[in-house]
């Protein structure tokens, strides 16, 4: 499969991009040949999505050139890229759930006959398109909202092909798919390849990368580390190149064994729609890291513990007492705090002041616990302790940097003196300086006796922070690892199959 055409379909040379003075991409070169599957791998924050957005017209690069089908291109927006023949399939689909497959595929360029939409032709062309990618069971007049995720993805691909896409970008295409659906996607990718369509394939999952790609490019910290034929790559190499940040980067000291106290939170046989057979002990004074790939149930675990999507089976105890965590409010009252992964969507109240954001949980849950003035003084102190940098505490929080917003969210919970803290990707989208500040805070909380559960998809962070780790896979706990485990250990548990193949 690695016979490469002499003229690449897409050629990127020296692509660079900065946001607010932070260099996100730096001199990246990349080629895709017709009919080639070129995988792009890297950690969160390595610059993969930025690169994909540049190729698909979402961002304009600061430097470098894009050549597509032999011509140099400047894309002013997604539609320019579409017209040139570049389609992108996002993690969240751009489809109208209330409309049919054909209506979605041809939205914006419906076939016409005598001025009217030619439904018959639209249906038959959609059927043809679906057939060319080997999808014959999907009716062109089915309502998209009733389709499974994998089928919706097929629709999304058909929509891109209807615009005569010659290069398709797939951004984490399997993130939302179940295992058997991944097989379907494999077949689809191969058929696209046979038609000479070039694919840029972004994924966390190394299994897929090895199964599907002809070449692999590894990105780290906005630079290209290496591009190699897949046949010459090994899982160990890739993981090392992806996450091989010098572990010397600073993390606070771990807890000494005598600092770790009794079991604070225990789960036995916990399960719900996304989780099965969860057993877990979380002790006072420790940081328990939760690893695993996207969709492995990491976030679902935190959300179950916080009562967002509660456990439907099993038993939860706090300090030995059985507790039902049916809502975020109940969990808050039980002494649990939750710093969410989606800071913008569910962490901050964007147009309210820093102080209002920091006081939100206190006001909602314990309105009369202490005097109002005393409480405000205390929260102001907390904001100072976590070193929020803002023009003032009456500044709207949306004008703060991600790191400072996260500190405000943290202060909101610290005001309640929680016994148990759940962190979901606490440093995502935060600059390096603020990151280590957050790390220090997490450790200080544990040292002060809190039980901390921390989800992270950044292996160095997970390894550097955790006193102990649980790695999740397919909604279960795949295994436990002690402090001092290696990145390979975590990857092995998280991906399962790759470790066997590579070992």
């Amino acid at each position, binding site marked *: 499969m690695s016979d490469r055409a002499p003229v690449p379909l897409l050629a990127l040379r020296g692509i660079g991009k900065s946001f607010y003075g932070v260099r996100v991409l730096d001199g990246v070169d990349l080629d895709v040949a017709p009919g080639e599957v070129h995988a792009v791998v890297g950690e969160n924050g390595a610059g993969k999505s930025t690169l994909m957005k540049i190729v698909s017209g979402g961002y304009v690069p600061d430097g470098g050139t894009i050549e597509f089908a032999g011509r140099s291109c400047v894309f002013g927006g997604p539609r320019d890229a579409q017209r040139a023949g570049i389609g992108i399939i996002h993690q969240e689909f751009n489809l*109208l759930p*209330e409309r049919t497959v054909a*209506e979605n595929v041809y939205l914006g360029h419906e076939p016409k006959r005598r001025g009217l939409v030619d439904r018959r032709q639209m249906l038959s062309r959609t059927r043809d398109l679906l057939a060319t990618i080997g999808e014959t069971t999907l*009716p062109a007049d089915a309502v998209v909202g009733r389709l499974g995720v994998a089928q919706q993805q097929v629709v999304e691909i058909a929509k891109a092909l209807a615009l005569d896409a010659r290069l398709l970008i797939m951004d984490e295409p399997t993130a939302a798919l179940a295992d058997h659906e991944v097989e379907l996607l494999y077949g689809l990718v191969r058929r696209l390849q046979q038609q000479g369509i070039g694919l840029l394939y972004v994924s966390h999952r190394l299994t897929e990368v090895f199964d599907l790609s002809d070449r692999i490019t590894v990105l780290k910290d906005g630079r290209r580390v290496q591009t190699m034929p897949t046949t010459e790559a090994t899982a160990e190499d890739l993981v090392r190149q992806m996450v091989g940040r010098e572990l010397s980067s600073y993390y606070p000291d771990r807890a000494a064994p005598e600092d770790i106290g009794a079991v604070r939170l225990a789960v036995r046989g916990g399960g719900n729609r996304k989780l099965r057979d969860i057993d877990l002990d979380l002790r006072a004074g420790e940081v328990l890291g939760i690893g695993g790939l996207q969709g492995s149930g990491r976030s679902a675990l935190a959300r179950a513990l916080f009562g967002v999507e509660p456990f439907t089976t099993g038993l939860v105890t706090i300090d030995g007492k059985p507790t039902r965590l049916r809502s975020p409010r109940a969990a808050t009252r039980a002494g649990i705090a939750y710093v969410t992964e989606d800071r913008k969507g569910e962490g901050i109240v964007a147009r309210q002041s820093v102080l209002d954001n920091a006081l939100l949980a206190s006001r909602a849950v314990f309105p009369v616990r202490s005097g109002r003035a005393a409480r405000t003084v205390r929260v102001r102190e907390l904001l100072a302790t976590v070193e929020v940098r803002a023009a003032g505490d009456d500044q709207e929080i949306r004008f703060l940097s991600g790191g400072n917003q996260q500190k405000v969210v943290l202060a909101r919970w610290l005001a309640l003196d929680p016994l148990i803290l759940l962190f979901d990707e606490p440093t995502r989208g935060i600059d390096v300086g603020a990151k280590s500040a957050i790390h220090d805070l997490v450790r200080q909380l544990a040292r002060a006796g809190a039980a901390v559960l921390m989800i992270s998809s950044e292996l160095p962070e997970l390894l550097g922070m955790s006193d102990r780790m649980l790695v999740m896979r397919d909604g279960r706990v795949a295994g436990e690892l002690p402090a001092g485990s290696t990145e390979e250990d975590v990857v092995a548990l998280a991906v399962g199959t790759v470790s066997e193949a590579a070992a």
Partner: protein
Amino acid sequence: MSLLSLRAARRPVPGVFVALAITLAVGWLIVMIDGGQLFNQSTTVSLLHVAAGLGLVAVGQTLVILGGSLDLSVAYVISLSTLVAAETMNGSDGALLPAIGLALTVSAAVGLLNGLLVTRLRINAFIATLGVGLLLKGYLDNGYDGPAGTTSPTLVQTLGYQRIGPVPLSFLLLVAVTAACWFALARTRFGHHLVAVGGDPEVARLSGVRNDRVLVVAHMLCSLCAGLTGIYLASRLGSGAPRVGTEGLYDLESIAAVVIGGTALAGGRGGVVGTLGGVLLLASIDAIFNQLEVDAFFKQVIRGAIIIAAVAVYARRAMRKAAV
């Protein structure tokens, strides 16, 4: 999931028609027990007349709501249209066509204004159309104390009172307008794009739809429908009536008929056929209560309750679907 189930629900009988059938059946029974007759000539005719007036404006309202917008100015457009039509005709048949043309042009211009306020100035549709409605209200209140102008006799005889069997001409007009709108939604690019804009403006934009233009056209069509209602009402009343739109609560009732007909208030889902069902349901309840000689005000109480209940049922269904 079988292929059949994917498609079977594609064009379900809107729930509103089931409700309509049950209402008519139960109403027929109760009226009979009461010693009356629900489906005699005069009740049927008046039912269809009520439906024609509300229906024309509700079908137009459906278009803007499908596109994720809303029009609170229709009641005033209706009143304005009756006046423009009746005053231009001034009792003679000679000016019939110019009068209709002028009334519709004025209406469309109001729709254009609504559309531009919503798209260009990005004013919330609720406020924009409320504001335009107030502008018109001031003009009407200031210029008119009571009926003005005289509708041409031909129009009164035809659109106003002519019928084929028990079916008034005006109801046939409603059916024709509904069919035209249904056709536009199903078979024109405009229709496809309108539903897309209402469903997800961002998806529509990324697919190359010109959202603003689509919404402006929808607003113009909505106002045109309101203008048509005005012409119809002028033909019934014999003159222009400056307060007929507001007194008939055509703004709120048209929105109610649309949502009872299964169109989502947020846009992107529904259609004019359901709206026709919603209109017929409201008109039937009217007719049944008239037959039972129930207090007119009780009707309104029931109406309010039905609107809330219908939307609650739709919301419940949507929730169940989301849970699957």
